[in-house]
């Protein structure tokens, strides 16, 4: 028997205490009255052999109690052999189902190879099926039922996403940790170079994993693809439509490709380009006709090659009339409207027209007809208009709230009700969040000076996008229900600042306008696997909906009221209706990284294999024995309790005897 905390054994010296007490008690008795001690003499028992330990049983019990308690604290244990299961082997089948596996019949080859390996396993071998694209999905196992594993392999279909070996390695490391098993990994893939992570360290497998690579497909495959399509997703003037497409070849020679532009299946134009060997070629389509409304566009090339799926590129475009922006200004303060309208009108591709309107006449106006509302220095905003504006924003609208001297005098920020005060300190720019969509491309406001600002304290959930040099907020975004507001704490004319005199003024006005109108200049097409937002708040009363490329609803009833985002996994067109009522047609294209068929060099694969174990020795299902410490402290504590009970019984008995003898 050993002890984990042997220091407690030093307390065994305390065993002397009961011994001393018992001897002392024996020796010292209560004085007995006697009539006269004149005939008595002092007599002591000097010899220890005359000292008798009375109540020996009680003494032994107390000694045992103390000793057992100390031994318990010392945490005694014995080493005991236990038959425990050693590390068993798990055979992992990782099958690449990314976009590139559509080439020829590579996925079928991978599945057949996986089946072959699976059938070669012993009856008790435990297996697991993983499907690999941008993420790793476990389809079956770990389990010894090989029929179930086969069935899972059969269900694997190609996706439109790119594969990631880094993601696979991370998932395998987690699997090894959670199962405690040694992994015998079989990877069935075309082993594209583009699937490798940027950092080789992300491919480290660990000592409990052995990697075997089953490469499918040819080592060298020439492939052309429509790599990208660049066009504005919103069209307001058909005379200004413009589309640029790029055709790329990998491991190709020089070739001519015919590019076709179609919209909703209607041919709009064709062009022919010569693609240099392993290079790119671009083509432009100008002033093509786009009817009003959302449309499904496609750019395709011919002739097709071994991977025809990337010879087409989907994009979405919508034509609409320019939307109006309501600019509310206080009477006698139309100067700022002039500046704002001039800025908006100068950007022809925004699809927005500024409509100045006196604030005093805005009561009862239907704000929902406008892309967004600009509330300019509205210190005298009446309650009815304020309520209507709040309701408009709450239901998905947007507003640009400009603060000026009138607002400073009123002491309150319209719509937000935040306190404000006048600040006449001359300041420059201190901070800009240029990564935010509202300020992307707006520059850094260099050399802009502000003579008058409204000093406000934003709410806790507000997002400060820009600050002046003393740290006061300059531009603040707030969410209100399904909508949002941007608050600019200075004027947008040159009365409180010289902002309009600087180059950053126009991009600021245009970008904030785009942001508030929801017409941000995003791509006309997104890659498969991209997530799109469905709602801004957790208001479960508003439902969102997504129709997939096959026209079917992608969300369940519960998801439609709760989901915040949706992953666009398949190539094609998705119709998205957000909880605020906005509808959007989104084009999804396959990840063009998969079009590059270049393979991972063999030496790189060897390096990858070497990050794991060369062999996996443990036999499946073989138990092993190991010596483990078995703690005895519980049993000692049980004895302590028993000794305490018996000691109390004996102690009370002897106490009674002592009382009677006294």
């Amino acid at each position, binding site marked *: 028997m050993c002890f984990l905390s042997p220091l407690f054994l030093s307390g065994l010296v305390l065993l002397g205490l009961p011994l001393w007490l018992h001897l002392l008690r024996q*020796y010292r008795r209560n*004085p007995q*009255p*006697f009539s006269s001690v004149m005939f008595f*003499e002092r*007599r002591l028992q000097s010899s220890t052999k005359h000292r008798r330990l009375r109540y020996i049983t009680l003494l032994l019990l107390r000694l045992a109690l103390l000793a057992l308690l100390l031994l318990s604290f010392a945490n005694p244990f014995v080493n005991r052999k236990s038959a425990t299961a050693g590390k068993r082997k798990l055979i992992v089948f990782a099958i690449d189902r990314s976009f590139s596996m559509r080439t020829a019949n590579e996925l079928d080859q991978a599945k057949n190879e996986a089946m072959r390996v699976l059938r070669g396993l012993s009856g008790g071998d435990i297996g697991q099926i993983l499907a690999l694209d941008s993420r790793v999905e476990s389809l079956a196992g770990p389990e010894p039922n090989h029929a179930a594993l086969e069935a899972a392999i059969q269900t694997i279909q190609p996706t439109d996403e790119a594969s990631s070996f880094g993601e696979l390695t991370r998932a395998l490391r987690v699997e090894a940790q959670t199962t405690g098993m040694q992994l015998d990994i079989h990877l069935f893939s075309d082993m594209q170079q583009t699937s490798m992570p940027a950092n080789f360290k992300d491919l480290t497998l660990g000592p409990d994993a052995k990697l075997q690579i089953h490469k499918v497909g040819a080592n060298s495959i020439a492939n052309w693809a429509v790599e990208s399509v660049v066009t504005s997703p919103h069209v307001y003037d058909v005379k200004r439509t413009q589309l640029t497409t790029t055709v790329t070849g990998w491991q190709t020679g020089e070739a001519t490709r015919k590019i076709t532009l179609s919209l909703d299946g209607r041919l709009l134009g064709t062009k022919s380009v010569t693609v240099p060997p392993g290079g790119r070629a671009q083509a432009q389509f100008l002033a093509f006709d786009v009817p009003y409304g959302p449309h499904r566009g496609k750019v395709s090339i011919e002739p097709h090659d071994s991977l025809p799926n990337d010879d087409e590129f989907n994009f979405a475009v919508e034509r609409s009339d320019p939307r109006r922006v309501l600019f509310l200004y206080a009477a006698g303060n139309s100067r700022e409207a002039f500046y704002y309208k001039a800025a908006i009108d100068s950007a022809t591709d925004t699809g927005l027209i500024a409509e100045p309107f006196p604030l005093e006449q805005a009561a009862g106006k239907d704000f929902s007809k406008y892309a967004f509302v600009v509330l300019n220095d509205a210190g005298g905003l009446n309650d009815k208009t304020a309520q209507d504006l709040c309701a408009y924003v709450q239901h998905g609208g947007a507003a640009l709230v400009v603060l000026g001297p009138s607002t400073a005098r009123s002491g309150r920020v319209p719509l937000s009700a935040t306190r404000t005060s006048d600040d006449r300190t001359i300041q420059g720019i201190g901070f800009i969040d240029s990564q935010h969509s509202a300020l992307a491309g707006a520059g850094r406001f260099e050399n802009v000076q502000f003579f008058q600002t409204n000093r406000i304290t934003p709410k806790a959930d507000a997002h400060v996008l820009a600050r002046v040099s003393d740290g006061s907020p300059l531009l603040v975004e707030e969410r209100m229900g399904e909508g949002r507001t941007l608050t600019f704490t200075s004027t947008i004319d040159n009365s409180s600042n010289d902002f309009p005199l600087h180059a950053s003024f126009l991009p600021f006005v245009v970008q904030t306008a785009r942001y508030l109108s929801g017409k941000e200049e995003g791509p006309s097409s997104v890659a498969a696997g991209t997530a799109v937002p469905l709602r801004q708040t957790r208001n479960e009363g508003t439902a969102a909906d997504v129709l997939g490329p096959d026209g079917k609803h992608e969300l369940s009833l519960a998801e439609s009221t709760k989901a915040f985002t949706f992953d666009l996994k398949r190539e094609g067109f998705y119709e998205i209706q957000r909880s605020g009522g906005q509808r959007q047609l989104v084009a999804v294209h396959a990840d063009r990284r998969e079009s590059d068929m270049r393979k991972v060099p063999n030496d790189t694969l060897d390096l990858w294999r070497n990050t794991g174990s060369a062999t996996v020795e443990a036999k499946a299902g073989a138990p092993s024995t190991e010596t483990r410490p078995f703690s005895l402290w519980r049993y000692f504590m049980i004895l302590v309790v028993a000794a305490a009970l018996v000691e109390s019984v004996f102690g009370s008995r002897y106490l009674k005897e002592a009382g009677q003898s006294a």
Partner: protein
Amino acid sequence: MPVDVQNRLLDPSILAQISNLELIAKTVVDGFVSGLHRSPDFGFSQEFAEYRAYTPGDDLRHVDWNVYARTEKAYLKRYRGETNTTVMVLLDVSASMGFGSGPLRKIDYAKILGASLVYLAHLQRDGTGLITFADDVTNFVRPSSRQGQLIRLLHGLDSATLGKRTEFARPFFELQRVMRRRGLTVLISDFYEDPETVIKTVEPLRYRGNEVVLFHVLDAREVEPVLDGPVLLLDMETDEAIETSADYAKTEYRGKIAAHIEAMRSKAQSAGLGYFLLRTDKPLDAALREYFKIREGKL
């Protein structure tokens, strides 16, 4: 009365169950007198000596009714033996007298003895008095044979409480003041004092023609102590504590106490004093017989 019943009445364990001291005294004396096979009449001598005028409270059985018939005045017959002896009972009530291992403590036993003696003296029409003492006189009842004296004496005995130390000189000084006539002095004590000192204190009384009886009252465990191992003893008078062993109590102590008792006896006898050792576990009749013997011898 049968002898066994008579002895039971004098058995201290029986007497301990009776709380009334007067009753105890009567029980003891009646038992003792019955054992002597004497006449139940009061008085021990039947020889007529003289007449005495009747005073309220006197026993009507001793009225000479013939004289009353003739003279219409009551007179008591007095017999030989009814002398004017004064009996003084001196009771030690020091703290050591509170020791006891049986049903009666020494003080209780001494009270019973004293009550029996005063009752017996009362029967014999002796003038009887009482002095209780510890380190000083705690109670003094002047000797008298008048009506109510017995009650006063019994009350004085019953109400006696334990004091602290023992001082023989004080009571005897008081006694010498009040004993104008020769009489009988009974000293009841445990005599935890140097025998020479005790005798020297008591002897002067003897020189004046008084009879003195020393009743040495001891508990059985004082004579034969039994200790269960080493023990710490506390003196009840001096509060002195002393550790001693069972072996010592069994051997050396017994020798010492026996020597002390013997010294008391021999010195008392040498001084012409009566001495009687009384153990609280023994009946009282032997003590009474000793008293009676001395009383008659005086006559």
